[in-house]
C-alpha cells in the first residue's frame, strides 16, 4: 500500500475547489487500487482548512503553517513541498493546475527526480505509474501519456473531476517548518491587483467573456451589466488583456486560464483556437458576434449573429425578467 | 546596406521560385522576397501543374519519397452538368505513367515551401551562398526607379539596390502598375474568383473511389450547373488523401446574379452526382483567390522595361480555354525565361530594355504566348452563356434520352439529339458555336 498525496491550494482564504476535485479523484483511485490518501495544506493558517478538506476522504492531513506562506513564493513553497515528500514518501503527488502549481512543478520534479505530467485532464493509476490524458496542440486534440517510476507528480486541469464527499476522521499532522527570509534570493517586492472579492474564474459557474468587439467603454459597460445580472465572473480574450482594457489575470485560453463553467457567454470574441483552448469545456456556450462565419459559432450551443451593442440591451433585459 | 544585388525577385510563388532557381544555378547574387509568412502560405491553385518544366527545376523530382507534389495525372475527365445529370468525356491512359509526368497535382502551401527549400539548397551550393537570400514575411512596397529604370526596391524604411527586378507578384499586380506597365484600372469582367475546399477521405476510400494506383491521380473539370448559371467552371483534383474541389467564377457575373462564391460552391457540392463523390469526406481547408481571365486584352502593355521583367500572373499569363486552367505552368516557364534573360544581361553588363526585350522574344517563341495567342477565341467563347448554360443542358438532356431504356420503341440518336437541341438552343446557335469551337481549339 502506498500513499497518494493531494496538494490543497488556498486562495483568498478559501480552499480551491479544483484541489478538492483532485482529492476526490485520488480517493476513488486509492479505493480501486488499495492505497491510502493524504492531503497537505501549506498556508499561514493551514489548520483552519482541515475541517473542509476532511470531507473529501483523506486519511491523513499534513499541515505546514508559517507566515512565510502569506504570499505565493516559489522558494519557500518548494522547500516545504520537498520536506513533505521526504516525510510522507508519496507514490503519487497530485496538484490542481493553478499558476502557483505551474510555478513549482518543474523544479519539484527535478529535485525529486520524479516523473511528471502537467495539466492533465484525466489520469489513472497503473501497476508502475499512471496513464494520463493531456490536451495538446492548443487543446485541439488529446494525447495519451504514461509516466513511470516510484515517484510521480501530476497536475490536473480544473473541472476535470466532480467533487465527491466522503467524510473521514482524518488524522491531522502538523509538520515543522522554518525558513529564514534571507534564504530567499528572489524577493517579492509588491503585489498588484489581487482579485480580492472578485469571482475566481476557474471556479465560476457563469462567465461573461469580452473580446475585441467589446473593447470600448460602452461595450465594457454592457459586459459589466450582463455579468452582474447573471452574477457571473468576467473573463476576456487576449485582445482585451493585451490592450489593457481588462486585467491580465482574467485572460482565458492557452496563455490564460482554463475554465469550465455551466454557462459561458462569449461577446465579440472570434474564437481563435488559443482562446477556445481555455473554455471549450464549458457546459453551455453562448456566442454573440456580428460575423456569421466567426469560428466561435462552431462550438456555441446558442449563437446570436448580431451587433453586440444592439443585442446585449434586450438580452440583459430579458435575463433580468427571467431572474426576477 | 550598400550591397547591390544582381537581381531582386518580388514574390515567391511559382514564377518567382522558378526564376530564383535559375539565378542560383547560374551563380547570381539575388534576393527573393515574399510577403507571406512562408513561401506558399497564402497561395491558391486548383491545382494541376501541367507539363514537364518542373523536371527542369528539380530533376527527377518523382524519385523523392515525400516531394512537394501530391499525385501525377493519368486520368482526365471533362464533365457537363445539368441540375440532375453528369455527362463526361473520360480518358485514362498508362501512357501518362511515364516520367517526367505531364501533369502533377499540388497543394500550394506544401509545394511552394518544398520548392523554396530546393532553391535554398541551390543557393547554398552557389558562389553566393552567403550573399543570396530568400526572405519571407517581407512585403515589397515599391520598386525604386531612377530615370525610369529600376534600381532596387523599398520595404518599409529599408531600401535595397539591384541591377534588375523581376516582378512575380501574382494576380494583384500593384507593383506592375506602379512601374507603369499596366493601367490602374482593370475591368471587373476580366477578374475571376477561385474558391476551393480541400476535403479529406480515408486514403483507401479515396483510392478506391477514383481508381487510383500508387501515386496516380485524376483531374476532372466541370462545365454547366457547377456554377449555377454564372460564367465559369468547376474542378476536382485528387491529392494523396484529399481532393481539391472548387470553382472559378466571373466576379462581375456573380455580382449581377447576386451569388456569393460560398453559395456557388455549396450548390455545386449539393449536386446529386457530386454529392455521391464527396460522401464521408471532411472539409479541412477553405481558400479563395483571384484569378485572371487569360484575356489578352488585359495583359500589361509590356512585360519588360529598363531593369524590370514581369512574369507569371503578374503579367496575366494564364489560360482557361475550357479543358484546364493553365497558370502555374505559364508562371514557371516565364520565370525560367526571365531569369535566363537576367543571366544574359549580367554577362553583357547591360540591364536596359535593349537586352531585356529578349525575354519577350523568348516568351513569344515559347508555348506560353503561342497558346495564349492561338486560343484567344476559345477564351472569349467561354464568356458566352451558351457555353456554360445551354450547351451542358443540351448534352445532359441528350445523354438522359440516349441512355434511357424504357420498353418503348427506341428513337434514333440523331432524332434524340435534334429534340435536345430544339429544347435548349437552336441549330443556328449551335452551328455558330460548333464552328467557332472547331476554329478556336
Amino acid at each position, binding site marked *: 500500500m502506498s500513499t497518494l498525496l493531494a496538494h490543497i491550494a488556498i486562495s483568498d482564504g478559501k480552499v480551491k475547489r479544483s484541489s478538492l476535485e483532485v482529492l476526490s479523484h485520488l480517493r476513488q483511485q486509492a479505493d480501486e487500487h488499495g492505497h491510502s490518501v493524504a492531503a497537505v495544506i501549506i498556508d499561514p493558517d493551514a489548520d483552519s482548512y482541515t475541517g473542509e478538506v476532511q470531507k473529501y476522504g483523506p486519511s491523513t492531513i499534513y499541515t505546514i503553517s508559517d507566515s512565510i506562506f502569506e504570499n*505565493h513564493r*516559489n522558494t519557500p513553497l518548494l522547500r516545504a513541498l520537498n520536506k513533505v515528500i521526504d516525510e510522507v514518501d508519496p507514490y503519487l503527488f497530485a496538484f490542481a493546475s493553478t*499558476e502557483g502549481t*505551474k*510555478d*513549482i*512543478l*518543474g*523544479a519539484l*520534479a*527535478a*529535485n525529486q527526480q520524479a*516523473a*511528471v505530467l*502537467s495539466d492533465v485532464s484525466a489520469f489513472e493509476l497503473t501497476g508502475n505509474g499512471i496513464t494520463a490524458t493531456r490536451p*495538446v*496542440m*492548443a*487543446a*485541439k*486534440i*488529446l*494525447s*495519451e501519456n*504514461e*509516466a*513511470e517510476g516510484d515517484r510521480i507528480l501530476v497536475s490536473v486541469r480544473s473541472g476535470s473531476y466532480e467533487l465527491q464527499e466522503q467524510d473521514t476522521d482524518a488524522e491531522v499532522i502538523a509538520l515543522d517548518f522554518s525558513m529564514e527570509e534571507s534564504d530567499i*534570493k*528572489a524577493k517579492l*517586492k*509588491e*503585489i*498588484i*491587483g489581487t*482579485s480580492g472579492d472578485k469571482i475566481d474564474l476557474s471556479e465560476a459557474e457563469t462567465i461573461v467573456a469580452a473580446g475585441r468587439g467589446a473593447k470600448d467603454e460602452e461595450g465594457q459597460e454592457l459586459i459589466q451589466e450582463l455579468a452582474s445580472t447573471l452574477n457571473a465572473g468576467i473573463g476576456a480574450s487576449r485582445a482585451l488583456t493585451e490592450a489593457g482594457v481588462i486585467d491580465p*489575470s482574467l485572460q482565458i485560453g492557452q*496563455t490564460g486560464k482554463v475554465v469550465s463553467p455551466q*454557462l459561458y457567454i462569449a461577446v465579440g470574441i472570434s474564437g481563435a*483556437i*488559443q482562446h477556445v483552448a481555455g473554455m471549450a469545456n464549458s*457546459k*453551455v*456556450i*453562448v456566442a454573440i458576434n456580428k460575423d456569421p462565419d466567426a469560428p466561435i459559432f*462552431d462550438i*456555441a450551443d*446558442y*449563437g*446570436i*449573429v*448580431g451587433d453586440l451593442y444592439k443585442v446585449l440591451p*434586450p*438580452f440583459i433585459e*430579458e*435575463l433580468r425578467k*427571467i431572474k426576477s | 546596406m550598400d550591397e547591390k544585388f544582381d537581381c531582386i525577385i518580388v514574390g515567391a510563388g511559382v514564377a518567382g521560385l522558378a526564376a530564383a532557381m535559375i539565378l542560383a544555378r547560374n551563380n547570381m547574387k539575388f534576393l527573393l522576397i515574399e510577403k507571406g509568412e512562408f513561401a506558399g502560405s497564402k497561395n491558391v491553385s486548383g491545382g494541376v501543374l501541367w507539363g514537364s518544366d518542373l523536371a527542369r527545376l528539380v530533376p527527377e523530382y518523382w524519385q523523392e519519397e515525400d516531394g512537394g507534389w501530391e499525385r501525377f495525372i493519368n486520368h482526365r475527365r471533362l464533365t457537363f452538368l445539368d441540375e440532375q445529370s453528369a455527362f463526361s468525356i473520360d480518358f485514362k491512359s498508362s501512357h501518362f505513367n511515364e516520367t517526367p509526368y505531364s501533369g502533377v497535382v499540388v497543394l500550394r502551401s506544401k509545394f511552394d515551401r518544398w520548392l523554396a527549400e530546393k532553391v535554398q539548397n541551390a543557393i547554398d551550393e552557389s558562389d553566393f551562398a552567403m550573399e543570396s*537570400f530568400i526572405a519571407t514575411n517581407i512585403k515589397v512596397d515599391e520598386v525604386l526607379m531612377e530615370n525610369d529604370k529600376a534600381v532596387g526596391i523599398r520595404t*518599409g524604411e*529599408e531600401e*535595397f539596390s539591384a541591377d534588375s527586378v523581376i516582378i512575380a507578384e501574382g494576380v494583384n499586380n500593384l507593383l506592375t502598375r506602379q512601374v507603369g506597365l499596366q493601367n490602374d484600372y482593370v475591368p471587373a469582367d476580366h477578374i475571376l474568383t477561385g474558391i476551393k475546399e480541400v476535403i479529406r477521405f480515408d486514403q483507401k476510400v479515396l483510392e478506391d473511389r477514383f481508381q487510383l494506383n500508387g501515386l496516380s491521380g485524376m483531374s476532372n473539370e466541370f462545365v454547366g450547373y457547377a456554377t449555377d448559371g454564372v460564367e465559369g467552371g468547376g474542378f476536382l483534383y485528387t491529392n494523396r488523401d484529399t481532393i481539391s474541389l472548387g470553382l472559378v467564377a466571373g466576379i462581375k457575373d456573380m455580382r449581377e446574379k447576386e451569388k456569393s462564391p460560398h453559395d456557388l460552391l455549396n450548390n455545386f457540392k449539393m449536386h446529386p452526382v457530386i454529392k455521391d463523390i464527396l460522401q464521408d469526406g471532411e472539409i479541412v481547408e477553405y481558400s479563395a483567390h483571384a484569378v485572371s481571365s487569360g484575356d489578352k486584352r488585359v495583359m500589361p502593355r509590356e512585360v519588360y522595361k529598363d531593369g524590370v521583367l514581369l512574369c507569371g500572373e503578374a503579367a496575366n499569363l494564364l489560360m482557361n480555354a475550357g479543358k484546364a486552367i493553365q497558370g502555374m505552368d505559364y508562371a514557371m516557364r516565364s520565370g525560367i525565361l526571365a531569369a535566363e534573360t537576367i543571366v544574359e544581361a549580367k554577362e553583357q553588363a547591360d540591364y536596359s530594355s535593349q537586352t531585356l526585350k529578349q525575354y519577350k522574344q523568348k516568351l513569344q517563341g515559347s508555348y506560353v504566348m503561342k497558346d495564349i495567342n492561338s486560343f484567344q477565341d476559345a477564351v472569349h467563347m467561354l464568356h458566352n452563356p451558351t457555353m456554360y448554360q445551354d450547351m451542358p443542358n443540351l448534352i445532359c438532356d441528350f445523354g438522359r434520352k440516349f441512355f434511357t431504356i424504357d420498353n418503348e420503341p427506341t428513337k434514333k440518336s440523331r432524332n434524340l439529339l435534334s429534340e435536345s437541341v430544339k429544347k435548349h438552343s437552336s441549330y443556328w446557335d449551335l452551328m455558330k458555336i460548333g464552328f467557332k469551337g472547331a476554329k478556336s481549339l
Partner: protein
Amino acid sequence: MKFYVCIKQVPDVNAPIQIKNGELIQDTDRMILNAYDASAVEEALVLTEEHGGEVEVVLVGPDKATETIRKALAMGADKATHIRTSGDEAYDSASYAHILATFFQDKEYDIISCGKQSQDTDAGLTGGMLAEHLDLPYATNAVGLSIEDSKLIVKRQGDTGQEMIALPTPSLVTCSNDMNEPRIPSLKGIMQSKRKPVESVEIADLDVEENKLKSKTKVTGYREKPEREAGQKFEGEPEEIAQKVAQLLDEEANVV
C-alpha cells in the same frame, strides 16, 4: 548583461493536423519558433538594447531547426548554439532540461530566459527544472521585465494578481507571450542573420548522463477530442433573437 534564451522549434498549431492510427500527422510539417520563446527573445533584445549586453540563443533540436535559430538571429540575437539531435528521440521536458543544464554548467551568464511553455504541448516544466539543476533563483510566467540596480525585476502573472519579484543575477525567468509583441525580422535582420555565428554541438559531445536522457514519461498516442457540435444559430432582429436565446437559456438549457 549576458542573456541566454532557450528557444524551441515547435509544430505550428494553426496548421491542419490529423490523427491516423493514434499518430499525429501534420499536413505540412511546418515548424516555427515557439511563440513564448519569441517573446523571451524580444524582451532580451529590448533589455540589452537599453542596458547593453549580449543575447545568445540556445536550441536543442534536429538539423532542420536551423531555420528557427536563423529566425531568432534575424530578430537581433547576437549568436547561437545549436545542440543537435537526430530528431528521432522521444525527449520530454526533463530530458531537454538535463541537456540544457549540462550545456550551461561551464557557461557564464546573468540571465537565462525560457518560454513559459511549449506551444504544442503546454508542458511548462523545462524552465523550473533547469533552474533547479543549476540551482538558480527563478520566476515563471513573466509578463514584464526590467533591470534595476543590476537586478532583474520580474512582473509575473500569479493566480489572482501580478507579483513583482526582484531576481539577483545569475537567475532564470520563463516568459509569457503577454509581455510584448515579438518583432518581425527586417530584411536587413534576415540578411545579417546568415553571417552571425552559430556554434554547433553534437549531443554526444555534451556528455549528458545517459540515464538522465531517458524519459520517464512518454506519449503513447493521440486521439480526437469528443466533438462539440455547433448548436442553434440565430440571425435576424437583434431584439427578437436576444430574447429568444435568453428564454432558451432559461427553459431549455436551465443555466440562468
